[in-house]
């Protein structure tokens, strides 16, 4: 198994991320943010900034860089900066200063004077619950729905008939993706073409959004993102620096580099909503669910840009229950925009659902794994379409064995001053695909190119292109040149929704089959080496009655440099036949100090059923990272929003994410059942499922260790005091 193909470039500092591109005559932009959360900008006095050393442009809603609408068919419209005087959150981009150097732009930005007509801000989710609005339809279903057994009138009746009921409310914190690369861009305007170097989850979509905003044809925008310094859902849309750098580069006729500062990333992008979730579980005494009710509320910005679908992402599908009722509401607030963040819906929803399942197991005096096995589903409740390939029971069995679950005591155990407990949780994430197009090119020099626009934000997609390309063309991986991260390449390949391997991989197989067909047709055409024959293809060679030739030899005999074919894939007929999901079992061992109440994760194991694994090493790495994200949600990260909308901890000193010393060894195991009902490659996604369930596993382990049930994450020392 080859390593990550771009690793040598990344370990030597030669991998060029967006702002690593420097050009002669380049100038620097610095974004100015609002210091109120709700109101209208009355005036912006940029005189001092304009006369500061090196300044060549000061832009604001009063003197804007004109930007039009930006949208993509996949994700709809996105916000563009500086086109309105309305401020709806603290830290909203309201200005842009361009100067000869970074330091000059930064200094001048601090001279911009803004006066506001300020209005009271609504910033508290808890205070806004009473005025929550119904969320829009989620995943094709109504925001509120119920599925009742025959003869059951209401979900309330189902609970009344349940011998055992647990009913609790859980909360999760506002989060930020915190990719290590701040949102940033270098824009170059030359001969009517805008070239943008900016980390993004899909080059083609970024070019489309910028073309819309700049009023250009799509082919007049060239988005280049061969390396992306982390994304996690936070770079699915074109960023404020990219819009502003591009517009300024065109206005000024000079290359412009712009980056958000780390503090600005926390407000001038978008993050994960905070949630409040009430879950009620009604069960028979043997643990089988009679009723499951999951009511969710989440924060959102005033534009209502994204709803965190916690009920629809978990309870809607996870367990066999006789009766189900879910609802999703949203609370618009004067806070930064919300968007997708690693396992949107499932990550926060699973904390609530899997904590509640643990509470039910305690109430029933039943092993938590046994409880889940007794509610194993063969299809989502109320749906006829069975799971295409589900081996969750095997994940539990293997996980319990490897983790030593049998040694778990009902009330944990002690090790010196440490209270030690074990917890577990189910993980599920839907197996999806997005439309993708890949071009496969055979070359006369015996190499082949596999190309798609897309992006590899650390997921290993570049390596996957090579591996699936090599397999599809039946040649060694060293002869494949994968190409990615350039909008000039065939469209699609958005790295999001854990879809890229399944989407691009299927397209590669289709393109490869096509190019092989074309090769055989050309090889047997009149005047060609296999004229009149019906040659076959294997091992990178064309085989006929008169012998065999490599594809390069055939191309050279035909006087051709190359032969290319495109393949496209999109979700299709399979959706009418099965339900699709990845599955997993998460395990955590947590130690809580008897006196200081510090909680430390000491062991973690995740066992996953994610179809076929294409690159074992990269898959394990990604899974480990996602599991650590779950630990982070449980014990570390959460944004604190002050009453005036300012983030109290919007930097990397105050917004805690795990450091190396916080994390123990992490064990990952795959049960590999290729899911060819989902796609020809047999791979389902694994970027997001690894985060799902882990926060609950940690909280459940803490309960096992201490007897304290914490229903609000992140869990802090205060919540563990006796």
């Amino acid at each position, binding site marked *: 198994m080859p390593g990550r193909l771009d690793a*040598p470039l990344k370990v030597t500092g030669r991998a060029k991320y967006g702002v690593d591109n*420097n050009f002669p005559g380049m100038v620097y932009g610095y974004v100015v943010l609002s210091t109120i959360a709700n109101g209208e900008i009355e005036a912006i006095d940029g005189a001092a900034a304009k006369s500061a050393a090196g300044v060549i442009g000061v832009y604001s809603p009063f003197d804007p860089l004109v930007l039009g609408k930006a949208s993509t068919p996949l994700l709809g419209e996105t916000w563009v900066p500086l086109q309105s005087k309305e401020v709806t959150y603290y830290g909203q981009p309201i200005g842009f200063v361009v100067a000869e150097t970074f330091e000059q732009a930064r200094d001048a930005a601090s001279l911009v004077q803004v006066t506001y007509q300020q209005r009271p801000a609504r910033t508290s989710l808890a205070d806004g619950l009473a005025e929550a609005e119904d969320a829009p339809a989620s995943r094709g279903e109504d925001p509120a729905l119920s599925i009742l057994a025959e003869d059951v009138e209401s979900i309330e009746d189902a609970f009344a008939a349940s011998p055992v009921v647990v009913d609790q409310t859980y909360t999760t914190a506002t989060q930020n993706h915190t990719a290590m690369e701040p949102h940033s861009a270098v824009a170059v305007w030359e001969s009517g073409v805008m070239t943008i170097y900016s980390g993004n989850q899909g080059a083609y979509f970024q070019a489309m959004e910028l073309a819309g905003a700049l009023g250009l044809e799509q082919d007049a925008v060239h988005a280049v993102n061969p390396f992306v310094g982390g994304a996690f859902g936070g770079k699915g849309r074109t960023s404020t620096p990219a819009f502003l750098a591009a517009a300024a580069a065109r206005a000024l006729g000079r290359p412009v580099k712009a980056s958000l500062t780390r503090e600005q990333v926390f407000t001038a992008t978008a993050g994960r909503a905070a949630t409040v979730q009430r879950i009620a579980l009604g069960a028979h005494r043997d643990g089988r669910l009679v009723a499951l009710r999951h009511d969710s509320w989440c924060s959102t910005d005033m534009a209502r840009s994204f709803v965190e679908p916690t009920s629809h992402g978990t309870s809607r599908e996870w367990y066999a229950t006789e009766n189900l009722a879910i609802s999703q509401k949203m609370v618009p607030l004067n806070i930064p925009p919300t968007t997708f963040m690693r396992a949107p819906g499932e990550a926060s929803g699973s904390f609530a659902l899997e904590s509640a399942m643990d509470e039910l197991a305690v109430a029933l005096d039943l092993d938590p794994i046994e409880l889940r096995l007794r509610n194993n589903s063969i299809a989502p409740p109320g749906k006829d379409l069975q799971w295409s390939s589900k081996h969750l029971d095997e994940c539990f069995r293997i996980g319990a064995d490897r983790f030593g679950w049998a040694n778990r005591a009902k009330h944990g155990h002690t090790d010196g001053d440490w209270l030690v407990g074990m917890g577990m949780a189910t993980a599920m994430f839907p197996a999806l695909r997005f439309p993708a197009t890949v071009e496969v090119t055979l070359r006369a020099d015996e190499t082949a190119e596999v190309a798609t626009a897309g992006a590899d934000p650390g997921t290993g997609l570049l390596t996957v292109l090579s591996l699936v390309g090599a397999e599809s063309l039946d040649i060694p991986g060293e002869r494949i040149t994968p190409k990615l991260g350039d909008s000039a390449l065939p469209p699609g390949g958005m790295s999001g929704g854990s879809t890229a391997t399944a989407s691009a991989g299927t397209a590669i197989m289709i393109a490869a089959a096509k190019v092989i067909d074309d090769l055989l047709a050309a090889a047997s055409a009149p005047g060609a080496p296999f004229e009149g024959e019906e040659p076959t293809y294997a091992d990178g060679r064309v085989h006929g009655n008169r012998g065999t030739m490599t594809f390069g030899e055939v191309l050279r005999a035909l006087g051709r440099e190359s032969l290319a074919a495109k393949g496209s894939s999109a979700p299709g007929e399979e959706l009418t036949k099965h339900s699709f999901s990845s599955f997993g079992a998460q395990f955590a061992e947590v130690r809580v100090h008897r006196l200081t109440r510090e909680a430390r994760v000491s062991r973690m194991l995740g066992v996953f059923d994610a179809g076929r694994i294409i690159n074992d090493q990269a898959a394990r790495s*990604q899974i480990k990272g996602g599991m650590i994200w779950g630990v982070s949600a449980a014990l570390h990260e959460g944004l604190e929003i002050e009453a005036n909308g300012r983030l109290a901890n919007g930097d990397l000193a105050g917004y805690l994410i795990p450091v190396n010393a916080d994390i123990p060894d992490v064990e990952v195991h795959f049960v590999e059942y290729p899911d060819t009902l989902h796609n020809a490659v047999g791979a389902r996604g694994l970027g997001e499922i690894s985060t799902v369930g882990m926060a609950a596993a940690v909280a459940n382990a803490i309960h096992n260790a201490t007897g304290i049930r914490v229903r609000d994450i992140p869990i802090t020392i205060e919540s563990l005091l006796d």
Partner: protein
Amino acid sequence: MDIALEVNGRTEELSIDPGVTLLDALRERLDITGPKKGCDRGQCGACTVHVGGRPVLSCLTLAATVTKPVATIESLADGEELHPVQQAFVDQDALQCGFCTSGQIMSAVAAVEQDVEDVREFMSGNLCRCSAYPNIVAAVEQVRQANATV
């Protein structure tokens, strides 16, 4: 002001504002872009370089104050021959997006050179949001074990 920086064995003359950090001098004046700006506040470690053989945060260091030789990630490999720590990062898949990797490796080289007692603690100044932490520890241990058997 005019300064001279010795970077990766070359002496570079620069005329800069006194407020220019070592990181911005490297990245924006000298086009040495291996060190990354993840926070510009000394909170993430992505900008780690060696000054006088010790790891420092180049975003918290004013270029004009630097008198000792500076070594960046670009100086580690010998042509196409990777430094053992770089090779270990490749072998152990100790990176995903790669944005923090330059800083991680400069800290890891110091961890190996100083033969630190607690690798996890020593490496905790370098954030990795992809969370490659277990693999980063494995990479440092790979080099330490190789050194121990020499």
